[in-house]
């Protein structure tokens, strides 16, 4: 091509450039989708499934986190527990009888309570049960203020009081009640060789899960019937939120000055958070699977587009004859791929949100849809559509108009 020719042409050209209005670019981009709706829906479905899986995974996980945050908020993160560990010979130890009183003297401590498991006594539905069948349940001596300190709730019946603590009365943890098959107060159970009357059943206690499998009795009756020596095994302590960290190192030496290393101090809310972190790892795995689904969906779109370009050589030729530039053809197929995956993205986002809402509601969690993730998901589908559509679009633009028109 010589510059002279270029110049004369430009001087001469009385007509405008080949151009398309933006609205037309989008409209023409939908022709393929409108003429083959089933194929469009099926290939968009691949994208939709991928994106909905990802959003549902993130949504469900963040809903359960919202639930956890709510729980921690209401339960409080200011509770510490101290447990008598094993001594250097591996023997279980107990704490001194005055431990609770000592703990309460620490600066910042608001309340404290204790339990003591009775290692040699178990609870049974009745006297006919073989002694070996303990069901993994423990009998524990509880302080009367225990329920307040651990934020426990009575599901039915009453908690122990000064009077019932002296009599064979027992309060069952939630799992204990289930395993014994007892759902109403007033039932009779067997502890050791004695009949005890169930006076109350607890709701599950998230901050003190060992209470769920416990049967709680008063210290007076325990001393009278089972020779309980008054030495607690586990201490529950509440302090103000700010002083948790200053109180924590003081608990072990206060509880057992002779052997502070035998005392294990822990923060149950940390355990809940750790459990959540473990769930997070699983979420990451599912997210990986979701992104693979999205990738496969993107390949599906690319495949559909490649076939579409081959099938529509005639249409491409016609459009070229009508004045479309290579760029117009390229943008037509690129827009088509973008619309295809955007369609999948929007449907997938709606689907993922719906699944999140259903699962969160079914579990009694607050529905927490992560909007930034939703937006990022739809943007990701657009990016996938652009990548998936690029090669077919370039191929379409390279289709020579003559071969496209012949036949």
């Amino acid at each position: 091509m010589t510059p002279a020719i270029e110049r004369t042409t430009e001087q001469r050209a009385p007509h405008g450039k080949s151009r398309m209005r933006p609205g037309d670019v989008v409209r023409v981009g939908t022709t393929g989708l409108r003429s083959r709706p089933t194929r469009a829906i099926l290939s968009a479905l691949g994208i939709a499934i991928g994106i909905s899986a990802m959003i549902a995974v993130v949504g469900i996980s963040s809903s359960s986190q919202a639930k956890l945050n709510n729980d921690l908020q209401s339960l409080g993160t200011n509770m510490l527990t101290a447990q008598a560990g094993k001594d250097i010979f591996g023997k279980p130890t107990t704490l001194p009888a005055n431990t609770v009183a000592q703990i309460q003297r620490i600066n910042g401590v608001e309340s404290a309570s204790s339990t003591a498991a009775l290692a040699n006594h178990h609870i049974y539905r009745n006297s006919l049960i073989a002694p070996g069948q303990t069901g993994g349940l423990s009998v524990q001596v509880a302080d009367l203020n225990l329920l307040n300190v651990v934020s426990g709730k009575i599901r039915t019946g009453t908690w122990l009081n000064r009077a019932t603590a002296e009599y064979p009365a027992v309060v069952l943890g939630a799992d204990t009640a289930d395993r014994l098959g007892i759902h109403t107060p007033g039932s009779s159970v067997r502890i050791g060789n004695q009949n005890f009357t169930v006076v109350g059943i607890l709701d599950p206690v998230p901050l003190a899960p060992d209470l769920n499998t416990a049967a709680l009795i008063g210290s007076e009756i325990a001393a009278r019937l089972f020779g309980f020596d008054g030495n607690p095994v586990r201490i529950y302590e509440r302090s103000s939120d700010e002083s948790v960290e200053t109180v924590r190192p003081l608990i072990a030496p206060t509880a057992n000055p002779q052997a502070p290393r035998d005392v294990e101090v822990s923060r149950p809310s940390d355990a809940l958070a750790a459990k959540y972190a473990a769930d997070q790892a699983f979420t990451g795995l599912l997210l990986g699977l979701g992104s693979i689904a999205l990738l496969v969906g993107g390949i599906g779109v690319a495949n559909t587009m490649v076939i579409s370009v081959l099938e529509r050589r005639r249409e491409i030729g016609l459009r070229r004859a009508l004045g479309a530039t290579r760029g117009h053809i390229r943008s037509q197929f690129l827009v088509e791929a973008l619309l295809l995956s955007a369609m999948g993205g929007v449907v997938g986002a709606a689907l993922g949100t719906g699944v999140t809402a259903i699962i969160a509601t079914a579990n009694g969690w607050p529905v927490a849809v992560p909007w930034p993730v939703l937006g990022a998901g739809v943007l990701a589908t657009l990016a996938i559509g652009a990548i998936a559509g690029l090669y077919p679009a370039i191929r379409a633009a390279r289709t020579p108009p003559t071969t496209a028109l012949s036949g």
Partner: protein
Amino acid sequence: MTEIIRLKGVSRSYGQPPTNALSEVDLMVEAGEFVAIVGPSGSGKSTMLNLLGTVDRPSAGTATIDGAAVNGLSDSMLSALRAYRIGFVFQQFHLSEGITATENVADGLLYTGVPRAERQRRAHAALKRVGLEHRLGHKPHQLSGGERQRVAIARAVAGNPPLLLADEPTGNLDSVSGATIIELLHELNRQGTTVLVITHDTELASQLPRQITLRDGRIVADSGRVSS
């Protein structure tokens, strides 16, 4: 009269080793002519039409269409030439199924940047020009073959291009429909459009003012310009 087509020593070869579909063709067509290009299959008619329609470029020689040297133009400039200056009519009509006659014709102006409402208006005018004002909202499958070809012609002339290229426009039609199409092309020619028709129907060609006969990629006969 100004010239609208000038081919000078134009060859077009395909493949390796190259075989010439068109060999050293010289041709000049003035604006306002009505020309038939005839010849048997494989004589190079379609190659010639592709070159005249600027969807293809010559391997050798120079092609000047509507004053533009095809060899030196970029893809976008050639596309602009087709969008504004050249209308195509095909044997298989190439209408889009599923959209109305009006929309099909309006698509002829799609790449000129004309707003949609204006395209529709001009499409109506073009359909009226080909005598289909009663078929504006019909879809291709609701039309007869002759009507479909008239829609295709309306699409080709919606932008009033000075050059109309028709590739076997009556090839898929019965003789009555074919005659109306030829009459329509005559009418468009009378209104000033330069019309080139490719056909292997010598009887049809003989009715036209000028016949160019191709054989084996060369012009073997030219009835000559009918000077006006």
